[in-house]
């Protein structure tokens, strides 16, 4: 099967144009990550310098992995059901575009801003810690392995979250239901990252490797799952 880069690019550019001109999407993309930033920032400011030794056994940065797990889910969940409601999906489906091309174009359009926002928020947090935290807190909190984990897991989690959102979007009739369902389905990954952050699951290399391999497999299966669920007839007619 050959994928047309031009058609994927057309969908991708169109989606980005729409995001750029839709204030609600921009606010939604920024507000949720900032909410996730509040708790760690407050925690950092309340920590005294003597707390740094205890922090070396915590992994608070991993808490921010919830952002790539949740932000793209909301975007992807709207992608098909939203277009269907606007009546713009039928003209697109009438063109030679293949379902894989449509899905990849829309997935890329959710992936790029979600990853950019996630890295930006993470960078912002690290900058706040480095600039304003008590002496000793920054080196204890910002550790090399966690930085690497953040960089590696952000795209992996975002991709899974996108496929889930798009699969839900292809099967629901209402954007709000789609957003709620896709966030609900993304919660298990958020739970795992939260348990790692809280130290309930030990944040050690074998665990990270296993978790990474698992998400990678899910990412690969995700496109197949989403395209299998995608049904041109169902999307056009809203038939059950």
């Amino acid at each position, binding site marked *: 099967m050959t994928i047309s880069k031009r058609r994927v690019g*057309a969908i991708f550019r*169109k989606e980005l144009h729409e995001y750029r001109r*839709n204030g609600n999407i921009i606010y939604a993309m920024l507000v949720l990550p900032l909410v996730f930033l509040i708790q760690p920032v407050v925690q950092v400011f309340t920590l005294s310098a003597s707390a740094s030794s205890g922090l070396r056994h915590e992994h608070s940065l991993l808490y921010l992995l919830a952002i790539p797990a949740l932000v793209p889910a909301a975007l992807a969940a709207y992608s098909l059901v939203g277009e269907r409601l606007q009546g713009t999906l*039928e*003209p697109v489906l009438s*063109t030679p575009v293949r379902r894989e091309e449509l899905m990849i174009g829309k997935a890329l359009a959710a992936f790029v801003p979600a990853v950019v926002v996630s890295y930006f928020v993470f960078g912002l947090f690290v900058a706040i810690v480095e600039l304003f935290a008590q002496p000793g807190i920054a080196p204890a909190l910002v550790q090399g392995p966690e930085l690497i984990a953040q960089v590696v897991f952000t795209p992996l989690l975002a991709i899974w979250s996108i496929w889930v959102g798009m699969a839900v979007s292809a099967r629901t009739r209402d954007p709000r239901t789609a957003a709620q369902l896709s966030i609900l389905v993304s919660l298990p990954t958020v739970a795992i990252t939260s348990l790692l952050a809280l130290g309930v699951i030990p944040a050690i290399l074998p665990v990270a490797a296993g978790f990474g391999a698992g998400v990678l497999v899910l990412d690969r299966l995700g496109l197949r799952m989403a395209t299998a669920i995608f049904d041109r007839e169902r999307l056009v007619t809203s038939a059950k």
Partner: protein
Amino acid sequence: MALELEMSLAKPATASNEVRPADAALSVHGLTKRFGERVAYEDVSFDVGCGEIFGFLGPNGAGKTSTVRTLGTLIAPTSGSATVAGVPLTPENGETIRHRVAIMPETPGLYLRLSVEENLSCFADLYEVDDPADRIEHALRAVGLADRAKDACGSLSKGLRQCTALARALLSDPELLFLDEPTSGLDPAAARDVHDLIRELRRRGTTIFLTTHRLAEAEQLCDRVAILNRTLRTIGPPEELRDRMFAHTLVVRVRRPLSSPGPTFSSLPSVDAWQEDACGSYLLTVSDPDVAAPATTRALVAAGADVMSISESQHSLEDVYLEFVDTDKEVERS
């Protein structure tokens, strides 16, 4: 509206009732679509010739849009077969067919936050057209929107959105163009512009499959029409359908009622029957108006009547349509 589409000239339209399979842009045999227990349309068969404007009429829920969606490979038929733009309608051929046809749905379905140009640019890439900027410019000029290219679609009137959707459908220079209610919601001037554009497209060889509720529009534009009400009720050129369904009628008006109309009308050539319609007005059912009208005039003058007018009563496509639809309603009720 400027008509400056630069597309290849093809064969002229056919107006005959029969389309040879080799000439068919669209060939449909026993096509049926069911959604569960509900029948959208059933056992539909027809051919559409290359370069023809084919009208597809029917009441709401008759299955017109479902037929268009099936032929545009958006939904799969339950049974039957079809060849669309020379390609058999199968799931594997969906992409090939969609390359050769374009569908303009009833609602324009434009991205309202994007400009006209951005909308068309997206679709030019989806169709992978060569030289997209040039095609967009031509399509916009064809629908008279060249000066609105940078405007957001959300700022356009309903009519202009419809024109933008039409420009979008023209981008790929389709062999077969499905127009679903193209003048719905347009004012008479805008509708006339769309009609002119449709005629121009036909002149350039594009086959047009037009679904509409505007029967005058179908009568004016279409070489042939089909009336669908879940099943195909009739098909043919509009004038032939009228002749097939309704006898020719002469309406005769005289200043004063005739004292003995029976002897005056009964013996006339080509007059099959007559009846008094109102005071001094008579309806004559005739087999050949060209023979009956002069003979009637002579007979009335000979009878001493003051003839006010003799005219042929014209049945429209609307009469044909209503005859079928009303009959179907009566059958459903009984």
